[in-house]
């Protein structure tokens, strides 16, 4: 610092001094910066440009590396920028480029400086200005400087020209109208002899075509030429990127480029180019078997390479192709599995994705087994990646790969116990989801939940709390499947539950409530049964009902009785199994389903006699003891729920239990308040909760006499495609649903609503009206399918799968031909809802967003595509645009154009395009010149343009030489190539 103090007074410190100072004073960096900044603030106000620029230089350094705000210096930067000295100018431009953004207030002030420098004779000044424009150009700048950029596009200096080409990208992005002016010249530069310029143009097109490839289809011949002729890898990579986009749009183009690309693949020694070829093939040319084979062979070379980068990219390429050519992955299966234990996280992740892509119905169990074991050993981060991908793969398309849901339920339980598991939320969702969707899995779910709940160690892990909440809910909701409700109750009320967050504790309390109700109700029934001989009037009617239900289905529905009988192998659980068919059947029959389940299951567990007087009293005491303190809990939810339970216990203790102690005879009058409350609660709880579709509202039957359809008809016109209500088929559906709704909400099934809702509502309605019968009948089969048909039965399989499912299944089947195993168990029914289709339909809005992606596209379309519109059969937007533009054109100009065109004797579309370019260019320039009031310049440009025009017509003729003479561009694009 000793030397700097002299410097301070005598000389200004320049950037190098500043940096050196930094190195000496590393200890107090912030102090040093503050001091330097103070100095800079003083110096930057100097009138001496040298001092000013040095200060600015230092400031931009501090800004770039030390995050010092330099917006205060924007005006000074402009001053330095306008210095006649190149050194200062450079510093000024650098500062401006670095610190300005679209909303910088002084932005307006640099327009003229930029224009001056763009017109400079010094090519380095021009390039400074171009670079600046490329970085900070906003709409105003781009608009005002378009003429200059246009001029520079045909500059004689290659150094300037290639930069001008690159700037065009920014100008187009910010000011789409510039396309009309510059596009033609840009395309012309593709023919340049200078490889740098060509590569610059291709670079621009590569960027542009990423956003909207369709507009550039007409340029395919030029790109193709480069693909075949060029030796420059960099250029080839960019062209390949463009073709990746274009080939997806135009199959004939794909056919044309596939051979040259394969040729490159065989020949090239550059890994980057090779990889780009592979990527193009796997993402856009996957229909061409030979190309894919070659690409996969090359990928294998990558995989066995020592370089982890190549390995990683090879795996990535594989996962791109996996959906279409699964064999490519299967071929490399060993390698994929091996890379799972690679040291590189990227590679591990990629191979995990590939493994997941291989999962199908018949190998899901093995693969997940391997992965779960692997997750146990691996580090937390990767462990969770594994768990996450298992979860998402298994739940894909409504658990389509899962056949054995009991296994899946226990898998979820096992995953919850993996020490690093942080996927609580996802596991919670899936536990509850399968609980609601798959009836057959409920007993297993309850036993999994019990295991989770009963383990006090799990309560200490906050990541598991969500899972525990699901387990608690499940065991409360499906308590009738529990082997030992008392044990469950103890688990739910164990002391360590204080570790849970309040919201989950509330779930625990509520589940305890359900279990309690279930126990007491069972007890009452069993007692009623015991006493039924003495008092037939009271409860025997209920039991008689049960018995009649039991008898009736046994005779008529034997087939259905048998299928669910597999579900429990456990011997002591046998009686329960028989209760299940009752449940289903009775729901079907529209009886008081819940009551009969209760009856049946209780009578089933009667032999065990677990619901004794004593056990119930113990239970009540236990609950009272555990929940007592909670009635003053701070959390309202817990407090309220606990209060409810305690209130009920009070009631029961008074009215139900005491009479027994007093004597049996009182039992005869025992339709007390308490037991009826218990029964009521029990009925309420055993009403099944079903998953509710997001469009369930539409299913609510319309009350008679409510003329909704007519009234809402106008509304429909307004809302249009927002959603597709069932409109005309509504009444058909609702009749059906009305019946079902009366039974149980879970029966609402809707597999027929898979049509994408984006279609015009009226069309859809029309369709439904016509095929109303079809919809109705399919609805009926849905209802029947509740009977757990064997999954292998092709007929019912068909009905179960909706369109989307079908598609996926089909592709998968065709990929793995040796599928179709003989499953030991039939796949249980998985409930599906309208809402499930959302993920598929949701893809459409993205396209809409694409449309928004900018005026760029609009203008490009309007411009280029006068041809493109016929090519793509797009909406009439482009053509209407075009009309509008033509109107704008002055009449004389128009005729001049036509004259020129006739002289050139061109009749094909490309010349039409050029005409429009030209005329728009002119129009544009007129506007521009009006604004800029630089008549001279305008004249120069006009002249240039004329010469340019002749050049272009030459080129257009070249094009015309090739076999095309068609009006529609559809034929034009490939015709260049074929």
């Amino acid at each position, binding site marked *: 610092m000793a030397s700097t103090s002299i410097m301070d007074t005598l000389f200004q410190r320049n950037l190098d001094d500043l940096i050196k100072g930094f190195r000496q004073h590393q200890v107090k960096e912030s102090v040093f910066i503050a001091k330097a900044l103070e100095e800079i603030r003083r110096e930057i106000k100097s009138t001496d440009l040298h001092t000013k620029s040095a200060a600015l230089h230092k400031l931009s350094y501090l800004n770039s590396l030390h995050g010092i705000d330099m917006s205060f210096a924007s005006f000074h930067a402009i001053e330095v920028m306008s210095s006649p000295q190149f050194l200062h100018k450079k510093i000024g431009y650098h500062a401006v480029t670095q610190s300005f953004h679209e909303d910088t207030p002084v932005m307006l002030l640099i327009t003229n400086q930029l224009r001056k420098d763009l017109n400079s004779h010094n090519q380095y000044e021009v390039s400074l200005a171009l670079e600046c424009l490329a970085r900070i150009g906003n709409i105003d700048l781009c608009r005002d400087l378009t003429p200059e950029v246009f001029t520079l596009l045909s500059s004689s200096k290659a150094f300037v020209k290639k930069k001008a080409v690159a700037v065009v990208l920014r100008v187009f992005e910010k000011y789409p109208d510039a396309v009309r002016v510059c596009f033609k010249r840009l395309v012309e530069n593709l023919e340049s002899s200078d490889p740098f310029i060509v590569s610059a143009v291709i670079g621009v097109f590569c960027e542009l075509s990423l956003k909207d490839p369709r507009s550039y289809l007409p340029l395919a011949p030029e790109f193709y030429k480069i693909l075949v002729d060029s030796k420059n890898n960099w250029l080839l990579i960019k062209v390949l*990127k463009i073709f990746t986009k274009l080939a997806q749009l135009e199959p004939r183009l794909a056919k044309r480029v596939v051979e040259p690309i394969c040729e490159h693949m065989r020949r090239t020694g550059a890994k980057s180019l090779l990889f780009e070829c592979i990527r193009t093939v796997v993402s856009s040319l996957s229909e061409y078997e030979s190309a894919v084979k070659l690409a996969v062979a090359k990928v294998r070379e990558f995989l066995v390479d020592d370089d982890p980068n190549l390995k990683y*990219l090879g795996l990535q390429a594989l996962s791109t192709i996996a959906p279409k050519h699964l064999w490519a992955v299967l071929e490399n299966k060993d390698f994929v599995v091996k890379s799972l234990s690679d040291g590189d996280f*990227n590679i591990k992740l990629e191979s995990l994705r590939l493994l997941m892509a291989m999962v199908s119905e018949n190998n899901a169990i093995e693969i997940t087994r391997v992965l779960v074991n692997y997750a146990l050993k691996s580090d937390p981060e990767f462990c969770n990646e594994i768990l996450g991908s298992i979860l998402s793969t298994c739940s894909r398309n409504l658990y389509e790969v899962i056949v054995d849901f009991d296994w899946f339920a226990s898998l979820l339980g096992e995953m919850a116990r993996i020490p690093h598991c942080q996927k609580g939320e996802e596991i919670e969702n899936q536990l509850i989801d399968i609980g609601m969707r798959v009836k057959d899995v409920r007993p297993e779910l309850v036993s999994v939940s019990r295991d989770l709940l009963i383990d006090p160690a799990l309560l200490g892990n906050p990541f598991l709390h969500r899972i525990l909440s699901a387990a608690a809910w499940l065991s409360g909701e499906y308590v009738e499947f529990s082997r030992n409700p008392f044990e469950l109750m103890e688990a739910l009320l164990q002391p360590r539950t204080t570790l849970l967050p309040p919201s989950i504790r509330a779930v625990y309390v509520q589940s305890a409530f359900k279990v309690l109700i279930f126990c007491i109700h069972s007890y009452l029934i069993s007692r009623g049964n015991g006493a039924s001989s003495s008092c037939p009037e009271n409860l025997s009617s209920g039991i008689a009902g049960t018995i009649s239900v039991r008898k009736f289905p046994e005779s008529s529905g034997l087939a259905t009785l048998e299928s669910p009988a597999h579900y429990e192998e456990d011997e002591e659980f046998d009686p329960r199994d028989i209760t299940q068919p009752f449940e289903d059947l009775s729901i079907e029959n529209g009886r008081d389903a819940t009551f009969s389940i209760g009856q049946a299951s209780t009578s089933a567990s009667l032999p065990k006699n677990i619901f004794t007087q004593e056990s119930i009293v113990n239970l009540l005491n236990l609950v009272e003891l555990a929940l007592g303190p909670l009635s003053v809990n701070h959390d309202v939810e817990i407090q309220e729920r606990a209060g409810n339970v305690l209130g009920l216990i009070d009631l029961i203790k008074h009215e139900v239990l005491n009479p027994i102690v007093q004597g049996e005879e009182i039992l005869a009058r025992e339709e007390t308040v308490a037991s009826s409350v218990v029964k009521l609660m029990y009925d309420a709880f055993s009403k099944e909760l079903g998953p509710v579709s997001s469009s369930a509202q539409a299913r609510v039957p319309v009350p008679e006499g409510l003329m909704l359809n007519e009234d809402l008809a106008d509304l429909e016109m307004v809302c249009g495609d927002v959603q597709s209500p069932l409109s005309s088929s509504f009444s058909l559906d609702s009749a059906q649903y009305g019946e079902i709704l009366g039974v149980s909400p879970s029966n609402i099934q809707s597999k027929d609503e898979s049509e994408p809702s984006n279609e015009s509502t009226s069309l859809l309605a029309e369709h439904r009206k016509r095929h109303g019968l079809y919809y109705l009948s399919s609805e009926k089969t849905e209802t029947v399918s509740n009977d757990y048909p064997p999954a292998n039965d092709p007929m019912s399989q068909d009905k179960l799968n909706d369109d989307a499912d079908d598609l996926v299944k089909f592709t998968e089947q065709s990929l793995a031909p040796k599928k179709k195993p003989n499953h030991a168990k039939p796949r249980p029914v998985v409930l599906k809802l309208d809402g499930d289709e959302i993920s598929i339909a949701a893809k459409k809005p993205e396209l809409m967003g694409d449309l928004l992606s900018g005026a760029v596209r609009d203008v490009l379309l309007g411009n280029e595509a006068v041809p493109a519109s016929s090519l793509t059969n797009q909406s009439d937007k482009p053509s209407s645009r075009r009309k509008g533009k033509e109107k704008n054109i002055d009449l004389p100009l128009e005729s001049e154009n036509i004259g020129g065109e006739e002289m050139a004797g061109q009749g094909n579309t490309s010349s039409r395009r050029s005409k429009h370019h030209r005329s728009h260019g002119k129009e544009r320039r007129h506007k521009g010149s009006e604004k800029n009031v630089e008549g001279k310049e305008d004249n120069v440009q006009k002249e240039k343009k004329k010469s340019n025009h002749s050049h272009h017509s030459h080129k257009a003729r070249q094009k015309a030489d090739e076999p095309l003479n068609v009006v529609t561009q559809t034929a034009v694009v490939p015709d260049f190539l074929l």
Partner: protein
Amino acid sequence: MIRSVMVMNTQGKPRLAKFYDFQPVEKQQELIRSVFGALCSRAENVSNFIEADLIFGPDTRLVYKHYATLYFVFIFDSSENELAMLDLIQVFVETLDKCFKNVCELDIIYNYSKVVYSCHNLGVKLSYVGACEL
């Protein structure tokens, strides 16, 4: 296109930071920090790519190379080839090496302007373009 070029040392101190789309300074510092966070957790001899979606938004990738005490980092999107970018880093470092004869971190610190300039010209040499306009 290339979104950003960074050179930082193994302690996370930036030695060069260029952002080709405007970022406010605070954001710049934050990005540098998060890039460093992603880099320093990686072992030696692993692949040089990182998916940078979380740091720089969707569809961005990051390629880096580790030389002695320095990380060279390029951030780019899907219009660039990963391996080509890796080569580009190599070219950049070779250029610096030529400029300084055995480049080391100190050279880069003391000759900031030169480095910036060579970074500037790098693109020109390779005829690389994009809106980044190196």
